[in-house]
């Protein structure tokens, strides 16, 4: 294993990037910190199998672009999510197909070519899952980005704005629009009722 050299202080993200200019291996610390959540975010949109590749690709791209990272424009975490979101955008058709499959599949039986997926038992009504997938499929790419960054990545509005390079206020208005559309798509069905554990 290539170990980063002696590092007396817990360097923060931006300092780690700067250190990686002359000490490339120290970028691996960022990998360990964020690979899990970037993977989770990509897997939510494209499935686990593709996420294995694209989450790794996110860090390769980030590493190659490490000298262009500008701490004045935002933190490292949203920067990484921005790269991951760009990579997801290259697979728009794959994402759409996945949502179509989710629309048709009985709840809890969705697989994505990777290992077994757990779809929480709380949403068991196939109609909820299908309606949700249909509504998300109809969202614009930009709205879909905001939705997944807020819900799955749990980014703040500020971080989403940095990730997508859009104004802070736009994040809130996009999310409100998304929520309206999802509610309409669910057709007044309470999404969490009807689960096996009630």
């Amino acid at each position: 294993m290539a170990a980063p050299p002696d590092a007396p202080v817990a360097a923060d993200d931006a300092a780690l990037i700067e250190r990686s200019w002359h000490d490339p291996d120290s970028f691996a610390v960022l990998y360990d910190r964020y690979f899990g959540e970037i993977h989770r975010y990509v897997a939510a949109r494209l499935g686990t199998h593709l996420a294995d590749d694209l989450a790794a690709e996110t860090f390769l791209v980030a590493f190659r672009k490490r000298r262009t990272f500008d701490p004045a424009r935002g933190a490292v975490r949203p920067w990484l999510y921005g790269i991951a979101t760009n990579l997801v955008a290259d697979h728009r058709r794959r994402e759409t197909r996945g949502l179509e499959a989710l629309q048709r599949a009985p709840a809890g039986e969705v697989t994505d070519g990777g290992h077994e997926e757990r779809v929480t038992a709380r949403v068991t009504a196939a109609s909820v899952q299908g309606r949700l997938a249909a509504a998300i499929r109809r969202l614009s790419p930009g709205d879909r980005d905001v939705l997944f960054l807020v819900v799955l990545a749990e980014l703040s509005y500020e971080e989403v704005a940095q990730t997508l390079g859009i104004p802070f206020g736009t994040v809130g208005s996009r999310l409100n629009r998304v929520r309206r559309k999802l509610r309409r798509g669910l057709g007044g069905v309470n999404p969490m009722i009807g689960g096996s554990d009630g």
Partner: protein
Amino acid sequence: MDERNGHPADELDAVRAVFSRPGPSPEAVAAGRDRLLAEAAAVPTAPPERPGRRPAAGTRTREDAVASGRWPGRRDPAGSRVRRWAPAGRGLAGVAAAAALALAMTLPSDAPIRLAPDQAGTAPATPGSDRPDARQILLAAASATAGEPAGGAYWRTRVVTGQRILSPDRRYVIARRSTRETWLTRQDGRQDRWAGRYLGAGPATPRDEAAWRAAGSPGTWRYPADVTGLGRVTPEALVEAAPGEPRSGPHRVGWRDADGILTKQLTGWKALGTIPDDPARLRAYLVARIARENGAYVGREMEAELRKTCLEIISRLPVSPELRAAAYRILASLPGMTAEGQVTDPLGRTGQALTYQVVEDGRLSDRRLVIDPASGLPLAEETSSAATLAGGQDTQVGSFVAFEAIGWTDEEPMH
């Protein structure tokens, strides 16, 4: 997103429920990491004269310079760090020494690993002031630990634990100690056992002793329900000065099949056997496991979690020497540890100290790991944090775990 808290059953929760995935597998973590490191290795190497890499004798390393300024909010005068980590005190020193002696006497000659006080001084001396950095110490420990014997009827650990706490009236510091030995076996017909003893409590230093005498030399201390700022003591605890009787019994923490705690989960013998002992695979395994347990956001907590887990592997779990060496190598690669040079641990043994900080209950706490470079074994883990006496003087409270024996043995428990 406040409104979400008020409406748990809404459309965003439904999205989370339908689209959440469990996190990457260790294999995916390892594969991605390999790709990144291959890319990093292809980059033209850094200038050979990296500052702090090989300091000339007598010069301060970059690490020293950073370390001296890295303790945020500390206003203690220079030299206080030595005092903070001073042995737990005169009153107890006698008790502890006696206990250590007793333990040494009951320790058969073929004990798996001796960590007795009389080994002090056998650690390779650091020549001059060109002392090794944290990474060098940890890598040396990795090499040393890889040579340990593996296998035996029992995995035995014997520790002395201690706390420095403020007296309930906050007028002085009390030091108390206990010893505990556990025997874990995976052989049928044998039984997991434990034995332990409360070693007593008393004023920590001569100055504390004077304050204790002025308070009427109490033999017990009753603590209030609110023990904030007093140190690691249970609310409403009754702390006694006198040592307790030796106690022992079957070891039942529900871990007949769970022989340790790894990244918060109980881990059984079978699971322990499947942990990879190659540093890169082990790291991927732990990163994947920590990422799964911590959900959406781990961030810079990752190093703290990795460090904690590696220390668990090194000092507590019945695993192979190779696995412990791999854990040391991961520790060596993590930022945040600083070499403090040769020190004396709470049991009076000499070792190399590495300090770091952790966030505990939202507050920074200082930690110190003392290892014996000769054996590669941990001697003690210590914590320390600031406290204030009733008179306004600053002092330190804290706790330690000192390891007296860690390893496999074919002996039988004598209790």
